[in-house]
């Protein structure tokens, strides 16, 4: 709660900057259009105008400034345009309509969640393997890092074709890409977490002659919970990005990714921008949700959170 005012301040600053930037970013296009509409523009030809920067051109054509805020096909839409589009597509459409962002949000969210569960599950299993087996640690960990250097957008179509050839379509291929992006932070975090117990805590169990399984349930797992939550928060937004990436090679049918693409393709920047912001808001909401669960869980476990 203490963060509300600071966040508003920062958001306000960004909005202000954005509002100012709208003018030079769109001025060239606006000037071209104004000329067609018979307004006076200096300099007079588009080719000459190319010589000027957006700011320079704006200063020379102050009377065109208002037009930059209400341009149909802006390079940088004004904030109120994006907000308007979002309002229209979130609140003014039935959520079952394919013109509703809520509908597309769900289309993206479902594979995100499935992929997140797969990725988290795999990540935890892998982390347990790495912590308990030296061979896994030594041979798999470096490759887990390498896996993250592979551009996913290059891999995605192949994965989807291979899965398609096995008759698997729909939700699952997207989830797999989402899982691929979310497993890594979970592995890294959980390896750290499972190794968090110090020598003394481990020695204590040794003096009790506890079995490895008992050590896992009584010590390593609970000790890793704070790390797990940190990973989950990174993992869920990675998962969402994975789904959106995967929406392109699965035939951009629906979902935030498809909206972004199609908006771009058919000259409707507002559609793209609204989808972009909606995606980021969804991620923020998911991360916020995990923060709440984290706080409750840690409190229940008696671990204080800062």
């Amino acid at each position, binding site marked *: 709660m203490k963060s509300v005012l600071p966040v508003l301040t920062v958001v306000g600053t960004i909005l202000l900057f954005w509002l100012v930037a709208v003018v030079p970013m769109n001025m*060239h*296009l606006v000037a*071209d*259009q104004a000329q*067609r509409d018979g307004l006076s523009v200096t300099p007079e*030809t*588009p*080719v000459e105008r*190319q010589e000027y920067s957006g700011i320079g051109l704006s200063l020379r054509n102050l009377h065109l400034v208002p037009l930059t805020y209400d341009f*149909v*096909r802006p*390079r940088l839409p004004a904030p109120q345009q994006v907000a308007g589009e979002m309002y229209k597509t979130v609140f003014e459409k039935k959520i079952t*309509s*394919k*013109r*509703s962002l809520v*509908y*597309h949000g769900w289309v993206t969210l479902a594979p995100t969640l499935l992929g997140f569960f797969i990725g988290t599950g795999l990540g935890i299993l892998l982390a347990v393997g790495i912590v308990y087996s030296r061979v896994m640690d030594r041979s798999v960990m470096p490759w887990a890092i390498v896996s993250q250097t592979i551009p996913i*957008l290059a891999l*995605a*179509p*192949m994965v989807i*074709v*291979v899965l*398609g*050839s096995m008759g698997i*379509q729909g939700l699952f291929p997207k989830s797999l890409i989402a899982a691929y992006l979310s497993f890594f932070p979970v592995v890294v975090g959980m390896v750290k977490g499972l190794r968090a117990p110090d020598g003394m805590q481990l020695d204590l169990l040794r003096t009790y002659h506890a079995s490895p399984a008992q050590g896992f349930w009584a010590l390593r797992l609970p000790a890793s919970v704070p790390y797990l939550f940190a990973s989950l928060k990174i993992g869920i937004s990675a998962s969402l990005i994975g789904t959106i990436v995967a929406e*392109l*090679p699965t*035939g*951009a*049918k*629906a979902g935030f990714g*498809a*909206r972004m*693409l*199609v*908006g*771009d*393709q*058919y*000259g*409707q920047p507002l*559609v793209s921008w609204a989808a972009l912001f909606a995606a980021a808001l969804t991620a923020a909401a998911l991360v916020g949700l995990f923060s709440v669960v984290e706080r409750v869980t840690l409190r229940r476990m008696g671990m204080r959170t800062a």
Partner: protein
Amino acid sequence: DGHANSVTLQLQWVTQAQFAGYYVALDKGFYEEEGLDVTVLAGGPDIAPPQVLAGGGADAMLNWMPSALAAREKGLPVVNIAQPFKTSGLMLTCWKDTGITGPQDFKGKTIGVWFFGNEYPFLSWMSQEGISTDGGDDGVTVLKQGFNVDPLLQREADCISTMTYNEYGQVLDAGVNPDELVTFKYEEQGVATLEDGIYVLEDNLKDPVFEDKMVRFVRASMKGWKYAEENAEEAANIVLDNDETGAQTEAAQVRMMGEIAKLTAGSNGALVEADFQRTVDTLLAGGSDPVISKQPEGAWTSVITDKALN
């Protein structure tokens, strides 16, 4: 059974009126009348229809012939079984004020081109004109064009690739007057290559069950196309219904359908050998880095259309 009557078609782009014939056939029950259960898979960036075909994800695909012939040379034996598009819709759209009046003026200019297997017609054309594509004052600087017309609007490029039915309209939608532009239709430049054709894997054709399925599929699809040509507005709305993104607009799709109708108008679905040969010749003339190296054999067949259209 399912195998004998189910068809999956892979499109080469997202749902739009470019594919109206198939959606109309689906919606109007033309496929059903043939006893077919058809699934239409939308395409998009990052989807290579030949690969989907190779992977068994689809029974038939739409493709531009240069891309399909290149795939053949890569060892993926795809065969054209029908050619609903008679005319090419591809063109270059340039700003008139750049001073471009003919292909030779491209020298020293920046041109946006689609890649992803769609660059072959352009490369062949430039090769025929003797213009290098490596930039410099005597060549053109090629940009890999994204999926929008912004490089032109923002004058990052002097010319971009457009389809008569889509991107060109978008340039106009952006407020540009046609008289600000110069266009070069590949068709008019004599370098037209065949666009949206229906392709299947060669091996599959040996299976009489599959062949029969395709005959019915092509027949119904062509019925769809002809219906779409005559009922452009309705067809556009059918496309809109099938667009799951909800981002397409009726105006754009109606206009697109109108333009598409011009490209399909001359075709009953059967491939005209001369068109095929012209495409091959254009590609073979591709200069130092030809798209295909030799006259393709068995790259098309009239068997299906012969049976489908009696």
